[in-house]
């Protein structure tokens, strides 16, 4: 059976005065019912644009879109606005980062929920109001009968996000896209919201795409993870694969640059040098090469493709380093060595490369 959502070679570009912005550059992913896909990346990596495009929300912004977005076999990318409107908020719903700016300040929360229901369902307003109360109760808002008649400003940040989730769930969507759903919230409230999403997914069986920059959040929620950099997915695998045997230097960089509660305190952070590239004037070859500590000359020319890792075919990576070299580097990084000491070129005299396989990999790098 084909997956619920199947995105194939999606490309989104925006024409601006300065040139063409390649916001999303040929990404493919899929999600299935009851599964959670995490998309991780920094600002400007294209993670939000790709999901907005799924719902047709970039159409009015002059986006050039190509590729396929198959939802239950239908291509959302080639649908008319009218057809798409029937799916959006109904079968696919989205929650946004900032709940204050996504709720209308002039209307009562209940009225906004009723609107979301009645757009897609032919029901009386009293039935819809009852449903609104039910929804607020579902997302754990205390005293829902009173709360439906309140305005968004009377809600706290966490409750607004719950109200947003209630609105997204109004029509029991099959797919929920959550774009940084907890970034604006405090940790204790974040934990509540993540637990709520998890619980709702178990009860309603929907698929979730969670977009975030927080590796902790995806580790706890996602089944599969796509790591995005400069408009592309540079690594894709199960959550365990991404965290236990990450393959891409960018993923290593992310994992080593965050301070963690579960490692020793004195461990030095290893930041990724430089900053994300411009999406108008993109680097040649591998997009990550200007920031990659393991770059070789040919990486400036050859553009890597997302390919399966030989030892683990459902784990894909777009990196030109040999698999053995990657294994050796990640092992070294985990032991707390610096990226400089693990450079493929310098590795022949590197005492860290002891295993036979890593030696041969290192020689490959020395060419």
């Amino acid at each position, binding site marked *: 059976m084909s997956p619920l959502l199947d995105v194939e070679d999606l490309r989104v570009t925006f024409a601006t005065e300065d040139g063409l912005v390649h916001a999303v550059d040929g990404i493919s992913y899929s999600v299935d019912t009851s599964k959670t896909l995490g998309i991780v990346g920094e600002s400007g990596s294209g993670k939000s644009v790709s999901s907005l495009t799924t719902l047709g929300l970039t159409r009015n912004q002059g986006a050039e879109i190509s590729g396929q977005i198959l939802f239950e076999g239908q291509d959302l990318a080639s649908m008319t606005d009218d057809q798409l409107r029937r799916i959006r908020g109904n079968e696919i719903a989205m929650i946004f980062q900032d709940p204050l700016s996504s709720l209308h300040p002039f209307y009562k929360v209940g009225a906004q929920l009723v609107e979301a229901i009645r757009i897609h369902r032919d029901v009386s307003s009293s039935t819809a109001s009852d449903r609104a109360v039910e929804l607020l109760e579902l997302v754990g808002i205390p005293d829902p009968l009173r709360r439906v008649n309140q305005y968004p400003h009377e809600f706290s940040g966490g409750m607004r996000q719950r109200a947003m989730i209630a609105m997204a769930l109004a029509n029991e969507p099959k797919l929920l896209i959550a774009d940084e759903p907890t970034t604006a919230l405090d940790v204790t409230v974040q934990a509540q919201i993540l637990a709520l999403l998890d619980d709702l997914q178990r009860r309603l069986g929907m698929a979730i795409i969670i977009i975030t920059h927080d590796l902790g959040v995806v580790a706890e929620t996602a089944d599969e993870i796509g790591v995005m950099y400069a408009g592309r997915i540079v690594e894709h695998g199960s959550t365990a694969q991404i965290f236990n045997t990450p393959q891409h230097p960018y993923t290593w960089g992310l994992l080593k640059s965050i*301070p963690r*509660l579960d490692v020793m305190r004195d461990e030095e952070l290893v930041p990724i040098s430089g900053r994300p590239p411009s999406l108008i004037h993109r680097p040649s070859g591998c997009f990550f090469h200007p920031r990659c500590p393991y770059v070789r000359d040919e990486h400036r020319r050859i553009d890597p493709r997302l390919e399966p890792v030989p030892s683990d075919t459902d784990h894909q990576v777009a990196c030109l380093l040999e698999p053995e070299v990657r294994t050796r580097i990640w092992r070294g990084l985990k032991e707390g060595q610096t990226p400089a000491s693990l450079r493929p070129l310098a590795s022949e005299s590197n005492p860290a490369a002891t295993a036979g396989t890593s030696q041969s990999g290192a020689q490959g790098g020395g060419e």
Partner: protein
Amino acid sequence: MTLDGVTPLLEVRNLVKYFPITRGIIFQKQIGAVKAVDDISFAVPPGETLGLVGETGCGKSTTARLLVRLLDPTSGQVLFDGEDVAQHKGPELKALHREVQMIFQDPYSSLNPRKTIGSIIAEPFAIHDMYAGSGERKQQVQELMDRVGLNPEHYNRYPHEFSGGQRQRIGVARAIALEPKLLIADEPVSALDVSIQAQVLNLLKRLQREMGLTLIFISHDLSVVRHMCDRVAVMYLGKIVELASSDALYSFPRHPYTGALFSAVPVPDPGGGKRQRALLSGDVPSPANPPRACRFHTRCPKAQELCWTEEPPLEDKGPGTLAACHFPLTREEVEQQLPAALTAAQASSST
């Protein structure tokens, strides 16, 4: 409060800040107060990094602003080098600002967009009439830029030409220009991308080593605080609820609120994060009308009658940990709530 005989660089005694809530336009009448900071005391010895953590509205940023005297305290003392600076004004305040500087959260709104980087960083010199010769001043500024990892040739550029991480470096350069003794960093990395965060954190650590700075580091991010700080104060609704060394706090939190905070942090380790989560219900109550007695009792899983009749004092609960709680967490409770990986890391560090 003295710390093992060391004279603290900064000592805060019973610091209070209430923001009045008023009604009426011309004849304003005070009808209440937001108790942003309500009677806190702590001391920071020279060279130490003290972390202030807590959620939105707990008073951590207000505390920072009171310490740099961007706000006037309602009552209480701020002793800097033994001198009470809480009521300083005019020239005295200006002199204080040579010693105490601040780094702000938002690198976009804390730099004047109409000024060049050179003049932004030179501003402290202009205010304090230092390095009056323009050549000399420029040289000083360029040395500072080099020190924080900016290209000195970018002296004449404007803030919009820099990325968030670089702007935060500009803010750091401006803050260390006068070689202050105390630097207060209010959420210095929360507006930055993860890969850039580490660059700024490493910079702050390096500068602290090189200049012997005392640092007060404010953040809502518990992992960042643990990485940066020697001691940590946890705030809740204007009060310090727990104050302990970083190692003690993170291995054995005593206040149920601290425990709940730790338990809520998502750990980037699938499988390792399995634990019984102590999820707090509800939101932080309003600081305009905080709960009576122990302010945490409305959300506390361990609250008993005593908690809403009597306010617990901040007192010693074991080696080096101060906590304000009648019924502090026990070893077993901590082990249940915290991520397995966390307790494992601590076990290996304590042996």
